[in-house]
């Protein structure tokens, strides 16, 4: 029988506590949430400026551009996932904690997703509108971005854990994570394009959901192992 007492708190309590703490920290520094969002919006603005404002082209490239921008802005925020904890020493406290490390890492990942993935999903219709996407597929765009950003946060937690404490963090992190993230991009962007073209798109959503579930069950363990390695 498992007893939930203050001396021996359950796994969920630890997970929630760490997520709550990270959300509080993010609330105190809203720049960390807003900068990737501005970056996302900015990249989406750059494409029509560079490739021309013609309608057909925007409609054709819209899903791809939105997805690439989402991927890049997620990458931007990944580096800071464990960085401040590493610098002020609270990461060591997590490592010696009695709580299972994968659960704590999952808590941090949940907080990261809530502060970087979810806002992206929420403002994506706004940008999709500028790309002349029909309102019927906003739901699908948001659903794929929702599933995709969960995958990216989880994959990113592995990369961030591997590179925590390294000086050349950001560029290296992109090099590690982008190949891993390519299937997500491919499934997400093409599902949206298919839906925009009125073709059957359900396969892509199921595949993305499958990827998200697999990542949810495996990535925290890999990230925890990586954290232990880079902090020994």
């Amino acid at each position: 029988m498992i007893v939930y007492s203050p001396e021996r708190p359950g796994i969920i309590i630890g997970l929630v506590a760490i997520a709550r703490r990270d959300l509080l920290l993010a609330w105190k520094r809203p720049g960390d949430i807003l900068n990737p969002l501005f970056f996302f919006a900015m990249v989406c603005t750059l494409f029509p400026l560079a490739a021309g404002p013609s309608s057909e082209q925007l409609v054709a490239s819209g899903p791809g551009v939105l997805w690439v921008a989402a991927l890049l802005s997620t990458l931007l925020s990944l580096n800071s996932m464990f960085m401040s904890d590493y610098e002020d020493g609270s990461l060591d406290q997590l490592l010696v904690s009695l709580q299972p490390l994968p659960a704590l890492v999952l808590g941090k990942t949940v907080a990261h997703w809530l502060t970087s993935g979810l806002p992206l999903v929420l403002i994506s219709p706004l940008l999709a509108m500028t790309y002349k996407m029909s309102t019927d597929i906003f739901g699908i765009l948001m659903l794929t971005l929702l599933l995709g950003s969960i995958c990216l946060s989880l994959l990113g937690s592995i990369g961030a854990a591997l590179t925590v404490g390294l000086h050349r963090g950001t560029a290296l992190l992109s090099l590690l994570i982008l190949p891993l993230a390519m299937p997500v991009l491919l499934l997400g962007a093409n599902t949206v394009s298919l839906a925009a073209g009125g073709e059957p798109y359900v396969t892509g959503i199921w595949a993305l959901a499958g990827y998200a579930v697999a990542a949810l069950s495996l990535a925290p363990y890999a990230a925890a192992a990586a954290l232990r390695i880079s902090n020994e």
Partner: protein
Amino acid sequence: MRKFFNQLWKLFIQLRVFFHQLISPLWRFFHKLASPPHFYRLAATLMPWLTVPALLLITYGIYAGLFLAPPDYQQGDAFRIIYVHVPSAYLSLFAYMIMAISGAIGLIWRMKLAHAVGAAAAPLGAAFTFIALATGSIWGRPMWGTWWEWGDARLTSELILLFLYFGYMALRSSIDNTAKADKACAVLALVGVVNVLVVHFSVEWWSSLHQGQTLMKKGGPGMDADMLYPLLATILGFTFLFGALLMRRLRTEVLYRERRTRWVREMILSPEGGK
């Protein structure tokens, strides 16, 4: 009931002891293999046994493939690039598997030599991946009329594989502490190997959406024996070549990693000078 479980437990212990006696020579071999000086000498003795078959098989395979095999009824002489392309493509995956498996061995049994295998295999795998991509693109120019075809699933997944290799090597070179770099790279290789499958299937799905014309039929026409045997020879020969190069790189890797140990110093200072 309890007695029954006790009996069962005893039986289990006996079985374990028996099993242990059965495989303990294997373990001894494994441990001996893990000892760097032993492996250093073993690799030297293995070298000729890998190099000579590699040279023979590749020479036969290339000669028979280029001169003896009949031209293809559709592709003419252009198909002959498969005698380099197919072995490289297969080795690009094989080297990744070796990297991942040795990473797992290194993480589970803390065998330092296994990590050295991963470190030595990565540049070789990247080289074979690059050769596979380059020969594929050279073949694609006359056959598909383009150097690069995004619609082809294998081309795209091979490119992603090349990036995975680059990431692995970049991570290794950016961590100064060798033991730390070893473990971090092993984790990355294991994550990557799960991902290679996902990449394969997702790219297949994607290219089935975009590809207008199927350029190479699935399964393909049955191959003539005159074409097939040289191909099998080069595949085997390239594998031997990979083994020989891996041993060569491993010897340097082991020597570098053990540079501060006594056996290396003694060996270098001995009259034979490290042969």
